């Protein structure tokens, strides 16, 4: 399976310390009321993408995340079960996955199909497969938003992700606009549904001269790893390589199975 990337946008909380809500209000003139930080983060990435590429009304939208908006889940539970209060209307609405998709679609003026896919295993690669299968039929372009927001404190996020206490997890939002058409593309990405064993990956890597990066979930794999973690790191890794016009291989792992993304820069 192969897709072309028309453009991308990136934000990581550990690399840039900004007040996203203020930027959305002041720079992009967006109404930020009744929305949580998770939605603000998604909207910020969308605005960065909008500045760099043409968005079509019929573009499809995919939003993917490891665990969604943990803060609103905890807040709702606290109101209902601890404080015996009714559910607050906009907490309930923000609890739903497609609320984020709605705000992003609205801010980008798109009316194509939108899907919110959530998982803590191969989150990004599996979303790419879904997106590919869909646009192979529709022949439209698709936007993929990969987003993870660390809850405060980060204990719950780490427990859900199953990562060790001493691992630093960060918030991030990374977008790409994908197409089946190579025209004006800045990179191509290849992937498939196949999962590999550690031996198969190691054999493959022996013949590889591209930059190889892996998730910290790939504990047994000897290659460069990001010291910090968020589940959709693969999306950031692609964007980072495209920024440097580099070719790259990214490897993710879940329960001893490996999946591979191959990026080729076209610039």
């Amino acid at each position, binding site marked *: *399976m192969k897709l072309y990337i028309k453009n991308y946008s990136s934000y990581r909380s550990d690399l840039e310390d900004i007040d996203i809500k203020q930027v959305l209000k002041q720079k992009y003139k967006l109404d930020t009321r009744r929305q949580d930080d998770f939605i603000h983060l998604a909207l910020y990435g969308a605005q960065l993408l909008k500045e760099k590429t043409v968005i079509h009304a019929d573009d499809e*939208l995919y939003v993917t995340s490891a*665990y*969604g908006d943990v803060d609103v*889940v*905890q807040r*709702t*539970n606290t109101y*209902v*079960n*601890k404080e015996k209060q*009714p*559910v*607050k*209307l906009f907490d*309930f*609405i923000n*609890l*739903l*996955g*497609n*609320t984020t*998709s*709605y705000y992003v*679609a*609205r801010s980008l003026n*798109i*009316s*194509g*199909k*939108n*899907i*919110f*896919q*959530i*998982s*803590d*295993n*191969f989150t990004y690669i*599996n979303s790419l*497969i*879904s997106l*590919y*299968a*869909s646009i*192979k*039929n529709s022949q439209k372009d698709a936007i993929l938003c990969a987003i993870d927001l660390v809850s405060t404190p980060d204990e*719950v996020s780490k*427990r*859900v992700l*199953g990562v060790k206490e001493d691992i630093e997890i960060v918030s991030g939002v990374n977008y790409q606009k994908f197409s089946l058409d190579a025209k004006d593309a800045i990179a191509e990405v290849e992937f498939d*549904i196949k*999962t590999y064993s550690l031996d198969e990956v190691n054999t493959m890597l022996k013949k590889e001269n591209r930059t190889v990066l892996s998730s910290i979930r790939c504990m047994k794999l000897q290659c460069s790893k990001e010291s910090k973690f968020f589940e959709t790191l693969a999306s950031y890794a692609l964007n980072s390589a495209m920024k440097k016009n580099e070719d790259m291989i990214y490897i993710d792992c879940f329960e001893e199975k490996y999946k591979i993304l191959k990026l080729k820069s076209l610039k």
Partner: protein
Amino acid sequence: MNAYINTYELLCNAGDTKSLMEAVYSKESALVIDNSYIEDATAGLGKMDYEDIFSVMDEVTAKVLEASNLENFHKTLLILGSSVGGMQECEQIFYNENSFKNIDPDRYSMNALSDHLMKTFHFYDTRALSTACTSSANALLLAKRLIEVEAYDNVLVMGVDGLCYSTVLGFYALSVLADKKCTPFDTHRNGMNVAEAVAALLVQNVKGSDAIELKGVGASSDAYHMTNPDPEAGGAIASMRDAIADAGLEIEDIDYVNAHGTATIANDKVESLAIEKIFGKNVYVSSTKAITGHTLGAAGAVEAIVSCEVLKHAMIPPQTGLEELENKNINVPIQSIKMNVQNIISNSFAFGGNNTSIVFGV
């Protein structure tokens, strides 16, 4: 590559597939009036009797596997649609302990349900979709597309949602929760009933002896308003037209619309308008939510099974609870109609204008 639904099963407030269809055709609502969720108020709900939602999923999944042509699910993709995932158990623990400390992270998040099934049945891979009330309809859509590109031969689509305080109180806060059994398309309807269900459909690239074809899928996002549909019904019309076109059919080929039909003022008004604009009175329409209630993320899968059963029974289901039809320009039967049913379209609509329509046929 075509996609076929070769076997399926569900459990809901009306029981299994067989019991549900008996209730649908005899117009016996399985909804109950409950006063345990909301202080000083009652609500019509679709409740099941079980230990925990995870064991219900195991039971339904095992039944589908047993009825299938597969020995196991090791080469099958699982796509599970749910609006709240493991919220029910998370709420119960928090309610008892006033703390998140003992919540098992593996049974908490949106994808906790698919992770559980992955560990029990060893699927090749999983996806968890959460687009509120279109979750499992979108899972069916994705299953069809993945089979078309030959990524997978077998996809188990599941729709799962268990009743929890967050959803019941959330819809109550939105003032759309009915205090009695819901009456879709009725002039005097007063809202929806939150409900729960587990439904599973095995979608394959080979046609079994008793197969229903998953002929077409369509989706749109009107992004008109966070909780209200586009009053001109643009999104609903687009998803239905896309699904019919994807199936390679004409509008007149559709025999029955299994409507989203939640019985909220907004949904039924706009969905009726969409059906009127596309079909006029030339197609039968009814909503089985008058029997099951609105099973939220499971609704798409539940109503896909109802659609498959309607094709097999060759009998259009009547509208339970209807006394006075609001939109007289659509054709809502109050008695079952025996006829040769070739193609059915099933609608699922969700907050944020997330619309999905699916065409099933023989």
